[in-house]
């Protein structure tokens, strides 16, 4: 297992959330551009995926990268962690992985003063960016332990509640093609991911860059921390304050309704899906330097945000059916205008 050393001291999370009155407003647009640029420098040819990833980060969401092996899923997760500059936890999903391996557990500690006692030893989830590789290879028990921790930002062990550091983002990867020995994520688990992206193979010229070392893992070490977790946390606060017009909200409601009425969708998108879509749209608006959400934000993010949340009636094993149907639904709803 590829466990990184857990952070020795969990970040004291309560204090830095208070924004100093004299703090300069954050230029979200520039910050996002820098973050996306550093992803682009490493992960070749997936600018749009990079934008969605950063939007997920700003929207306090979790990202699931779903693709065939070897297209840079893990690399994408790692570069986000590096660029953000916070702590980084990595978990490799295996069937024998236990919830305690993820969240941390009470360990006997012996020291000369106090003797042996049980002390909470935080798991890899106590990091600003948590990369969970091969999520569907872990058992459902472990999956839900991780996702609940991510959702609630707390871990409770032995009656003690431990707060996760802020910001906290789970970037999970999974291979949808290989199904032997995997535990498919249930609808409830999938619903906890703000966005699912499928980068796919890069174009030949980018592939050449990777092979010759101009991009790819070899460049990972060159990435320096652009910002700090504290700045990301403040950015997240600012993003949450982006204005959403009622018309835009109604547009999302219409799209959700369309997924619920579509004949080929057995179960439409949930309300949580709508909330998460709005959050992502806010992040995208902020990343473009706007203080308001426009319908194009919704239309551009709906597939990534809703594609995994609909249950396709007759998918015949297609992994893209949900995304295609959501795209159809979005196209069928008229966008609001002035």
């Amino acid at each position, binding site marked *: 297992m590829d466990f990184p050393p857990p952070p020795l001291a969990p970040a004291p999370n309560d204090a830095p959330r208070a924004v100093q009155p004299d703090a300069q407003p954050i230029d979200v647009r520039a910050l996002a551009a820098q973050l996306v640029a550093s992803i682009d420098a490493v992960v070749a040819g997936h600018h749009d995926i990079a934008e969605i990833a950063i939007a997920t980060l700003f929207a306090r969401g979790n990202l699931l990268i779903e693709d065939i092996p070897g297209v840079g899923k893990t690399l994408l997760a790692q570069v986000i962690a590096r660029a953000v500059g916070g702590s980084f936890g990595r978990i490799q999903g295996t069937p024998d992985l236990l919830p305690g391996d993820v969240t941390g557990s009470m360990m006997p500690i012996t020291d000369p003063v106090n003797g042996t006692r049980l002390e909470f030893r935080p798991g890899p989830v106590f990091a600003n960016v948590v990369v969970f590789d091969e999520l569907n290879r872990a058992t459902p028990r472990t999956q839900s332990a991780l996702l609940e921790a991510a959702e609630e930002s707390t871990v409770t062990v032995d009656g003690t509640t431990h707060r996760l550091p802020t910001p906290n983002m789970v970037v999970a990867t999974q291979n949808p093609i*290989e199904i032997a020995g995997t535990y498919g994520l249930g609808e409830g688990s999938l619903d906890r991911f703000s966005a699912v992206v499928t980068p796919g193979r890069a174009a030949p010229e980018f592939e050449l860059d990777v092979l010759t070392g101009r991009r790819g893992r070899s460049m990972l070490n060159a990435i320096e921390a652009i910002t700090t977790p504290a700045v990301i946390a403040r950015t997240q606060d600012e993003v949450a304050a982006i*204005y959403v017009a009622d*018309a835009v909200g109604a547009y999302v409601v219409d799209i959700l309704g369309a997924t619920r009425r579509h004949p080929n969708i057995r179960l439409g998108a949930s309300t949580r899906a709508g909330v998460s879509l709005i959050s992502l749209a806010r992040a995208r608006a902020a990343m473009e330097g706007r203080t*308001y*959400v426009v319908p*194009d934000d919704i239309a551009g993010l709906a597939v990534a945000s809703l594609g995994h949340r609909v249950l396709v009636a007759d998918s015949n094993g297609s992994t893209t059916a949900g995304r295609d149907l959501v795209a159809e639904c979005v196209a069928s709803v008229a*966008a609001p*205008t*002035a």
Partner: protein
Amino acid sequence: MSSRSHPVAIAPGGLALIGAWLVGLAIVRLTGAAAVLLFLVAALIAMAGSVVSGWLRLRSVNVTTFSLPPTATAGDSVDIVSEHIDQRRSSAPVDLVAFDTSWALSDVGMTSASVVIADPGILSSVDYSLETAGAAGLVRWRRRGSAPVSDVHVAPVAAGPVLHVEHAASSDDGSTAHGAGPKTGELDGARPWRPGEGEQAIHWPSTLRTGEIIAHERTAASEAQWSVSVESDPARLRWTLEEGRRRGHRVIVTDDSATESAGNVVRTADDSLKWSAIAADRRGIDSTGEAAPKPTPWWRRSISLVHKPLLPAPVPTHARLLTSAAALIALWMLLGALGGSLSQRALATGGVAVSTALSLRISKGARPTWTRILVAVVAVAALARIAVQASGIGGLLAALRGPMPDLLMLLVVLHGAEIADRRTTRVHLAVTGVIVAYAAGLRIDGRVGWWMLAWGVVTVAAFCQLDTTKLGELRRGVAARIGAWSAVGAMSTLALAAFVPVPDGPASLGLPALSNNDAPEAPDGSLVGPDGNPSPPSSTGDPSRGALGEVGGYTGFSDTLDTSVRGDLGDEIVMRVRAPEPAFWRGQIFTEFDGRVWRVSDVEGAPIEGPEIAIAPTVGDLPLAPTPTEEFVQTYHVEAQLPNVVFGAGRPETIIFDGTVFPRPDGAIRADRTLDPGTVYSVVSQRVPVTPTSLRDQGDLGERFAPFADRFQVAQFLAIPPSTSQATLDLAAQLRVEGSTYDTIRAYESWMARNTEYDLNAPVPDGDAVDDFLFDSQRGFCEQIASSLVVMLRSQGVPARLATGYIPGSRNQISGVFEVRASDAHAWVEVWFPDSGWEAFDPTASVPLSGESERSTVGADATSAVISGIASRPVELGLVVLGGLAAMAAMRGLLEWKRRRDRGPWGLLTDRFLALDPLTSTAPRAAAVIAGTIDTAESKVRDPHEVAELLDRVAFDPSFTPSADDQRAVATDIAAYERAVKQADRERVSVS
């Protein structure tokens, strides 16, 4: 590149229209109704327009390019994308057929479909055909074409066995020797299974684990090289190349015709596919070296009578509703013609509504059993009712009025419930067309034209909506097009109808007769007034004016006619006469005159029972010379209370009357009952066509009749009342034209026209009515005028008598019937011409001679009806048209104002911006498309992205308040984009 359009098929159900049209023709023959003929002409024009519409529609569409994947396997489906230009955005769908697959072109200029390419080879162009039936969808037109595509390699499905190959092997040390194939090596891992490998190759454990078929990878001890000639069987070539790769060899295709063969190494499956396609292509060229056969010209191609659509053709709901409206109009028209009761109308309406609802359910796929049971029960019950009704039917018209409408109603309602597709809809519309023609043949009122117009508009609309899947929005262009088409259709209808003569009366087969059995009877054939009482003699001795005041109470319809009594006649329509030409509708004939009162003889005719009654000729009816005669058929629809006088034109030969008639020896005909409203009878008359020349040629009748003047048959028509004054005789002798009685009559008439005056309020004569009129008062009405003419002619030895009846009345030019009013009652003179029989003359009313009148055409009638309609009320009509236009403009303005108010200035700008690219829904995306279409630097306009952002800010940024300058600037920018996009579109069209 494309060929000419040519018709290929008639739409399903289209033949029913042709059948209905022919039935309409039969109805014209049967009823002689000009309205039906006009209807048929209009239908013909509409059908012709519908045939042409497909051709016109096809002209506006052009396919520009096809996109296909570069490789394909014959027999497998591939995705094809077609791009087209539609210069006229019409709701009429156009189908594109290529590779034996048909798909409808989308609105947006790009359509994708899945096709199967059957033949292997290299495809450098796509042969396609465009098909459409146009808006009305009656005849399907096709235009073939061919569009170039970048080469598509289509390979056959690989098939063994392996071709003969040249083996070359290189051993581990790199030297090459001609070896006998590779040695099987050791296991070297796993790889995906390749099609064609045996089951020995499968690695079962990993196959089970992954769910995919995994095969062993084995090392080759030495690398072998296969080289295959391209000149081989394509399917086996592909198989061989694949097999070589499967075995891990270096595979080379040798091409003898190519100069360079080094690069022909097959590396991927696509390579082997391409080589196989090349091989197939060469074979294809070798086998069919000759040029493609010349296409047959369109006129030599056969047109399929029925187009079988590839897809099921459901009926759009709005087309279904229009069809029901057409059926309802037809049924109401029919019931109106047959005097249907209110309950019948309600029943028809309800039936159509229920059947519409049922058929809508059926077309939605739901076929509940109860609907079929309901339909069956209704059908059986209605048929039983009709059977009961039909058992008591006597005559034809009774059948037409009783069970017939019920049967037709049942047919329409039941068929309406079964409408599921476009074929049945067209058949249904054709059936309603037959009903409209039938009703128009029976209807004699003036509203028949409006009913037909309403049905026509609704039916054309239904036809036009049948093929479209969506309700076409009524844009400005569409409305103008509809208007133009309607105008052209109306013009051509009138123009064509101008060549169609008015039908020559009803055919004898279909002559209706109907009378009221409860009407007051006159069993002995004596004259009975409208009230059923024997009419009192109009001569009362009292010199005062008699005022009968009744509608049918003309004094001429009694046994005596006092020239001093004039009935007070109203303006009501007393009867409608369907006849091809105008004529006097004669009722009574008077021979005896005492200078003041005309009398009929007491001799009544012998009764003859109907319905078909042959009338024997009376004195003077049989022409002496063998003159050709013609049949003149009239049908009388009585609309008011009339006495038992049977009217007829010329010499009635046959009368179709539901009852008994008494033909009098003087030629008048009486019935055994009074004629009530609703009575219908027909008269077939014999007429001798005469012209002034033919009458003049008969010479001086006084001289010709002189030898027989003492015989009673002639003498009764020569008797002059003793009170006749000498002045009258002198005048008659003085005006006489030697050698020609016809000219003598004309001379008398013109003298009277010069010296006397027609006056309904003429003073009542004291003594001799003729003398009084000619010399004393010199004012009189028709009885006095006609009496004077008779007396003057008799004094010159010319047999003459007085006839009363009605003048033709005004002809309704749409329904083609003469509307006879009470005030049309008249008295005129009949003169016995020995060669042609009794001829009517009238100094006051102008009725043409039977040989003179030129038969009008349907078109001329309709045109004059329209023109007189406009001319009689130009101001009102203009006001109505103006009012209509103003209302339409107001409606449009109101909607536009509402839209503007709802959308606001920025909403309107956003709409215009988004309309620049109809596929996008948000402003930034539209901006991206616009930026790709136009060159902002060249046309010096703002970047569309900026405009899009501004539009979004206005809508969604609460902190932003746009200024008027912003709005102006954006409006200017959008206008510039609109110009640029239009320009780009034009360039694209002209390039293609």
